């Protein structure tokens, strides 16, 4: 079982958190701080496994993480999960995030998940994550399947959004105009995604 998925940046700011077991908000923040503390002091060339922190888990739990540029992806898992499998899964999720949310990064290496992209599309990343992990268990690892499902749902949202969300979108588009740092809005439906045939392991 996966107990929690935490994504935070090099300063410990949470970018996406997903607990599969209930913790109160302040406890969640403590866990993030503790995890950040544990993970951030490790060099990049040491192993990606860590005995669980004191707040989350226990003897049976491990932290498995990957560090990409400015982001830490941390999974807290128990002994029923394969350590190397989870490492691959993290890579996979990064890949999905770049494919499904930020299509323009497709040609780049998928390890370059941009933090900024993540910040502004937390909800979308959650929806992708939901197709991969559900209730703490790995739901699907087939890339084509995940991408297809996410795309279909986004399409559905788009077809609904034509009516009510349009004005709000227009407004935010206007608001966005003068700010150079903001990533472009992406419409996934238009682009045919070709998934490179990476072996899942």
């Amino acid at each position, binding site marked *: 079982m996966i107990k929690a998925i935490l994504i935070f940046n090099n300063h410990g700011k949470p970018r996406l958190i997903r607990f599969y077991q209930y913790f109160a908000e302040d406890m969640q923040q403590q866990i993030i701080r503790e995890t950040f503390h544990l993970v951030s002091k490790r060099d990049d060339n040491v192993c990606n496994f860590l005995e669980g922190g004191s707040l989350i888990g226990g003897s049976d739990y491990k932290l498995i993480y990957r560090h990409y540029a400015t982001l830490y992806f941390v999974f807290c898992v128990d002994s029923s999960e394969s350590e190397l499998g989870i490492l691959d899964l993290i890579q996979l999720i990064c890949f999905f995030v770049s494919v499904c949310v930020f299509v323009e990064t497709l040609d780049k290496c998928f390890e370059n998940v941009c933090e900024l992209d993540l910040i502004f599309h937390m909800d979308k990343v*959650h929806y992708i994550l939901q197709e991969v992990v559900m209730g703490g268990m790995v739901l699907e690892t087939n890339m084509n399947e995940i991408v297809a499902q996410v795309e279909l749902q986004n399409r559905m949202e788009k077809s*609904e959004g034509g009516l009510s969300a349009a004005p709000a979108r227009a407004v935010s588009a206007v608001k966005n105009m003068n700010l150079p740092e903001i990533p472009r809005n992406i419409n996934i439906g238009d682009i045919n995604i070709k998934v490179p045939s990476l072996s899942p392991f």
Partner: protein
Amino acid sequence: MALKIVKGSIDRMFDKNLQDLVRGIRNHKDDEAKYISTCIDEIKQELKQDNIAVKANAVCKLTYLQMLGYDVSWAAFNIVEVMSSSKFTYKRIGYLAASQCFHEGTDVIMLTTNQIRKDLSSPNQYDTGVALTGLSCFVTPDLARDLANDIMTLMSHTKPYIRKKAVLIMYKVFLKYPESLRPAFPRLKEKLEDPDPGVQSAAVNVICELARRNPKNYLSLAPLFFKLMTSSTNNWVLIKIIKLFGALTPLEPRLGKKLIEPLTNLIHSTSAMSLLYECVNTVIAVLISLSSGMPNHSASIQLCVQKLRILIEDSDQNLKYLGLLAMSKILKTHPKSVQSHKDLILQCLDDKDESIRLRALDLLYGMVSKKNLMEIVKKLMLHVDKAEGTTYRDELLTKIIDICSQSNFQYITNFEWYISILVELTRLEGTRHGHLIASQMLDVAIRVKAIRGFAVAQMATLLDNAHLLTGNTQRNGICEVLYAAAWICGEFSEHLEDPMQTLEAMLRPKVATLPGHIQAVYVQNAAKLFATVLRKHDGETESQAAQETSQLLIDRLPLFVQSANLEVQERASCILQLVKYIQKLQQKNVEVAEEVTALFAGELNPVAPKAQKKVPIPEGLDLDAWINEPPSESESEDEKPKAVFAKEEPKHSRSRHTEVDEKELARRREVRKQEQANNPFYIKASPSSQKVYDAPGVEHIPVVQIDLSVPLKVPGMPMSDQYLKLEVERRQKEKAERKKKEKKKKREKRGKERKADSGPESEEDITPAHQVDIVTEEMPENALPSDDDDKDPNDPHKALDIDLDKYVPYCRHLQFIHVLHIIKPTVYWFPFQKSSKHKKKKQKKEKEEKEKKKKKRHHHHHQHHSDAGGEDSVQNGTVEEEEPLPVSQSHSVSLKQEVKVYDIQGNHQDESKVVVSVIFENKSDSFLKSMEFNVLDSLNSKLQRPEGAGAHDSLTVPFQLPPGVSNEARFVFSVQSIIMPQKLKGTLTFIVKSDESSTHEKLDFKLHFTCTSYLITTPCYSDAYAKLLESGDLKGSSLRLEGINMPFHHLLARICFHHHFSVVERIDSCASMYSRSIQGHHVCLLVKTSDQTVSIDAKCDEPSLLGNVLDEIKQTFSKC
């Protein structure tokens, strides 16, 4: 009105969306909290509006704020509103928010049941998917109970996307509502062979998770998993299965033997490291389980160790880490194979990665022997000196102690060396493990009699140099060792060379800065030392020394009498008065030494931790009997429950009786207290925080603060290294001597000599440096052997320990029970056949059929009468147990089709129509087509046929079935009266097409509609309930159930689950329940329980319906 709408949409135009919020927060780095609080105010405004789009937007922003640590539970109701939006976009936002912040304590969750049910049965698969995903995060026991059947239905959904989610969420449902496991299990098992790999993987996932907690219940699935393992190509599934086998093998060694070969093949063939690693792990598990029975699997062990060595030598730190981890598992059973890689492991101790060093440390634990212990510890001590960061150093420290003390100091040959290691460890700065070192010192000094003299000398030096340990405030943790030092010096003071000096050291003013519990030990042991000094000077007339000692105590003790710590104060003042009295006697030249020594006489022996528990109760002693009659004036009302209580829980009442003879025991308790004070085993687990107490008279005493940053070499303390050298020398000497002896022997009896002593010495050859008497722990005579189960009673998985193979009567009943609905269609389900559960039965039938085949080669009818009432399944239930290990058994079913009815859905709007979902599964090797479904209508129930069709025409099933495939079809029935249970006979005809020929086949079945299946769980408020009962329209009936031996809430849950009632109100052991039929009959129950009898008073506006429902309830409970 129109204006209002326009205004609303204009407002909305200027609402912030999530991106704006994020941007705003980023732009207000300095006053983030303030900015967010204004945002929250805005969100509150937005939530007040009617427009659902605005609300959804607000909830989306709240989800972001929740991530930042803001409590958003106040918006729970709004989240529910957004969840119930009809638009997928908003619904998804709502469910996401709910999954992030709902939990069992969220009260609005109760309101979501119907919404979720509606979404689960939505025609849009993504609505269902989103609801399932959300539910997986916040499912509560209530939701699990109410929705279990809906989700079970979804497990057979036509879309694999829904199937896999439904399968996966069942695990969460099981955890919250364990009763659902049994009815759901057959279907879950089926999903292991689902054509969709995603669904299959989900089912594997769930079963692995279940089996991990209670493996023995899943042994019978081993053949199925074995098949999957050899056929699946999905590495995720393979890993899960292989991990599962790792959990199963300890229970079934035969499985292990079968596994070795395919696993070895996988190890050789796979390129995926993750799979390779898990295979190695499982092979190790197999080898561990076999190690007792099977002698030779050295090839497999070698293979594993080899592969692991490759992993450990890899430059990838992750592989190195995992390699070490797996190595430690092999270590337990095959230490020899690992010990040959000692070089590699010691090398890992120098790795730059702390996790890897820690893993390597774990391995060291099992690699020590008498021979290499000193060497390894020396290496570790070097690391201790080098280590940066206290965590790793503390870890090293505990490991050193673990290694040395393991299995009763088995590997220690020289305790002087060990004591000096412990003393060296006290030099660690800022360690948390002072108490650990202290307890080791105590343990060794008490249990190894031969070492006491040396230990006492060391401890005396330690006490003398106490300022080095306590001088630096960072070293607080380490001052715990002084506790041990003081006690050892006091208790074994006869070994002290100069007790006077130690006494002086123990009474220094600086001691008053130590934590209270240590001071207390100091004071008490000062008294012991005092006794020793007196004894030493016994006989000398007018001993100056003895009187000086008394004076020293009288001078120094007042400092402790003023201590803020009660324990210290009490002991000090006691001892002070005692010494004053002794001084008086001394002045009169009275011999006192004898009497003072008597205060501390007696030998201490260690007591085994469970000794007290194991004292057998002497014959004839009744601990529950009153020693004195209870006071007669106690009120009679009180007496009765007391008697019951005492009868049921004698353990609790025991303590009460001891109070009676309290006075008698008071004296003994005092004695015990004294013993406790002296007994090191009453050492407190956690050191109390140090209280600095500025006693008057301390300040003016010049205390030299020595604060050195380099590790201290305590003067006069031995270095452990020298022992290592000595030990080596000693061994060499011994060896030489032995060789001499052997030569002699050889000369004497050359023929018999077979030992070629050129190799390394064996363990037994190393003799301890001095005769060590390790005192074993004391146990009471006739100690009762007992194995305490240390299982955590709060483990949620414990409830899932359900033996799924065992035939439990009520489970059969469960399967035709259909659950609830309030607004949406009722879901019912009941299989016709005990299909997958009773494989054996099928096999039997197959055999019979095969025999039949021989006789008449052409037509053979498979008649699977399956009666929902289950009369014949009682016989099925007695089928002999399946062997757990017919691995790779082929499921070649000659010719077989299966029909299962899973769901009967009553539509609430149309009170006479019921939808029956039937699953057709082709278990044969042939292609099935032209299936026609027909039911013999009764007066009451009719199959709805298309217009123009005759009353007896069959309905065509709109699909064909290739071998091994299942599919679902729905049929509508119209039902007139629902007050009686009914059975309908039906026939399915189909064409079996094989390569050569095609034949017509027929399958008969029965449909069984119970009365409870027409009931729909409907919530009812207590006032409405009361009104209903008052109205007088309802007719009553009642039922008594005897011998019900289950907790009341289980009983209620069972009625709710099996019979679709909802609890209106519950007071203690009495509850009112309500349900409604699809045709609007009210059914009210009043359930009461006392002892083992349950009485149910029921009322309903339709007496015969009520009678039937009560009969069914009775049946449910008669089978449990």
